[in-house]
């Protein structure tokens, strides 16, 4: 069983990387672009774990390590 965790900065947290990308896109002539935000995706193979247990397990991984909930939100998708 596999999972994909998408981690993004919370609204209101300044995103220096997103801002830099936006600036660079403007420089390249993509002037209309706005609101650029950068986040992370982490894909993992959960190994032998039941479909029922998976959400709680991945959630635990997120709060313990993968996301810093002071500044980040996360979303979990289970794939198989």
């Amino acid at each position, binding site marked *: 069983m596999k999972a994909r965790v998408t981690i993004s900065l919370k609204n209101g947290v300044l995103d220096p990387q997103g801002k830099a*990308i936006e600036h*660079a896109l*403007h*420089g*390249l002539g993509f002037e209309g672009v706005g609101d650029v935000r950068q986040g992370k995706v982490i894909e993992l193979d959960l190994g032998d774990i039941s479909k029922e247990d998976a959400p709680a397990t991945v959630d635990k991984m997120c709060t313990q390590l993968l996301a810093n909930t002071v500044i980040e939100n996360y979303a979990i998708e289970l794939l198989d």
Partner: protein
Amino acid sequence: MTEITKEIVAEHGLSESEYELALEILGRTPNLTELGIFSVMWSEHCSYKSSKKWLKTLPTEAPWVICGPGENAGVIDIGDGQAAIFKMESHNHPSYIEPYQGAATGVGGILRDVFTMGARPIANMNALRFGRPDHPKTRHLVSGVVAGIGGYGNCMGIPTVGGETNFHESYDGNILVNAMTVGLADTDNIFYSAAAGVGNPVVYVGSKTGRDGIHGATMASAEFDDDSEEKRPTVQVGDPFTEKLLLEACLELMATDAIVAIQDMGAAGLTSSSFEMADKGGVGIQLDLDNVPMREEGMTPYEIMLSESQERMLMILKPGREEEARAIFHKWELDFAIIGKVTDTGRMVLTMHGDTVADLPVAPLADSAPEYDRPWVPTERPAPLGADDVAAPADLGATLVQMMGSANIASRKWIWEQYDHMVMGDTIQRPGGDAGVVRIHGTDKALAVTTDCTPRYCYAHPETGGAQAVVETWRNLTATGAKPLAITDCMNFGNPQRPEIMGQFVGCINGMREACVALDYPVVSGNVSLYNETNGTGIFPTPAIGGVGLLEKSEQMMTLAFKGAGETIMVVGETTGEMGQTIYLKEIEGREEGAPPAIDLAKERLNGDFVRSLIHGGDVTACHDIADGGLLVAISEMALAGNVGADLDLGEALPAHVAAFAEDQARYVITVSADNVEAVTEKAKNANVPLQIVGTTGHNEIKVGKSASVSLHDIRSAHTNWLPGLMAAPGSDKE
């Protein structure tokens, strides 16, 4: 099994005659794995087939040289049972294709070369050449390369204490990224790569092997064409964290006596490391490829042997020491695998899944690598340009500002502020001076390190340029008070199969040799990067030189900053008005002409030894060698560094612009406190060294008699803003 066709042979970069030789050595047709091994072993990168004949002519010995070229890095004695171990290496082609990872893995590679010999790296340097500043790719390449060098070195915690950066259109399609590392070891605990001891285990440590950079070594020797970006050759990704662990684990194991031999896996990975170890030791090696830690499934012997995955090492251990070593590597969370043993067969035998997948004789493959005496034509020395050939500018002051804000003189602060240059707590001269200086931890001593080369001189007249590169490093070290001890080199050239390019190579080597001999300044390590050409246009010949010098007493170290007002500014050495190939000529007149400034090695030595003795005697308050841009640029750099101006009188012998911007060699600017001027003058006379008083420090401007008066503020803006301005301009593709 893949049939070995002509096409496959050609794809492997082997010429027909090379393939013939391979058949002869083997006595049969090689299989694909064996062909791959021949191809990387005989690539220009690994075999030095075009350059060997000439490299051999360089002086490599001195009483303080412990190990010259041939090992992973050069070793010199710096007293008290300590050795400095250093080398410079190129990562040009990979950095052009993927600047961040290319430069990062270049740093990783040179670090391994140094710590593989038992040294803890204590300083990094980098010599960079980019295309013209307004070339559409330049900014992308500069930002990626600088970030990559910083990304790797900063994470490793090794200070990057200096380097050099040039911009010139000859590098538009072939940038140069040369990285240098200096390490510190005990003279009685240096590690070499010769395998020994039949039956001893061959051990693999570090990262797992993946399909990275397969054929990187042949790529690094192949000329570019326009679609090389399309081919997306396999670029390696660096993992500095793993390298940091590898460094600590290797040093921990090296503190025991378990290691017989050790060699990093660099270009051509497991192939070149195992062959080199076997060849140096005159033994055979048997490897079981099933035991190689692998990152991916289904890797073939060909891929395993040619992979250039980073952060790996190969070692021969003493029998019975495997478990002790394994424990150390496991503590550092690194892979450790026994993958074979030393044999007495003189052959490299590789097995996988119970089959023999390659069986090659070691010595013939390593030693009868082709060696070419390629045809070459010398470059004629152009006529020198003097005062009469170069018109005076309308406004000397404005010209100075323009010079200080020009591509090859402007401050490189934007670069070195992205490098951690202070970590390890021993950097006593940061980037921005003539050389980076690091204390030897816990002692009074310090090492000075610099890299230099003036490619436009090398192009105009290779012999002069080669010598100049060496003497400039020697001067830069001298200007800090250090005694220059030895150099490493990184020979970056175009296609050696073109006689004029080969002539550049030969010329540069000849010049380097003369300079090294005259200065007692041997070559202890180096690297060659050829085929730096795109569509038949080669780079300027660029023999980058890395020099290392020793300060016995770190408190004696000198810097270039003016220390205060009212000091006397003096020039050591003679100014005859050499205007050929100067920055002035290129920047102000748009001309690249004439002979480079002449080199007089006896004068270099005389003047340099004199300056060093003044520094050691406490007679000098600031010192800077005169190089790119000439006297007035050197003085302006000293003024900016100290935030103290200068009031100058450059004399009547030469027109002001010539006195200001000529690039005569063997010169230094020093400052001396007013009450010491007479004594210093007397010393110069006794030593037969030309010494001229050119002015006094003070105020907030650079004033040249009645010809110029410019505020430090204006000079500083031009000098510091050029590079950030270039990098901030919009429209650069890729961040």
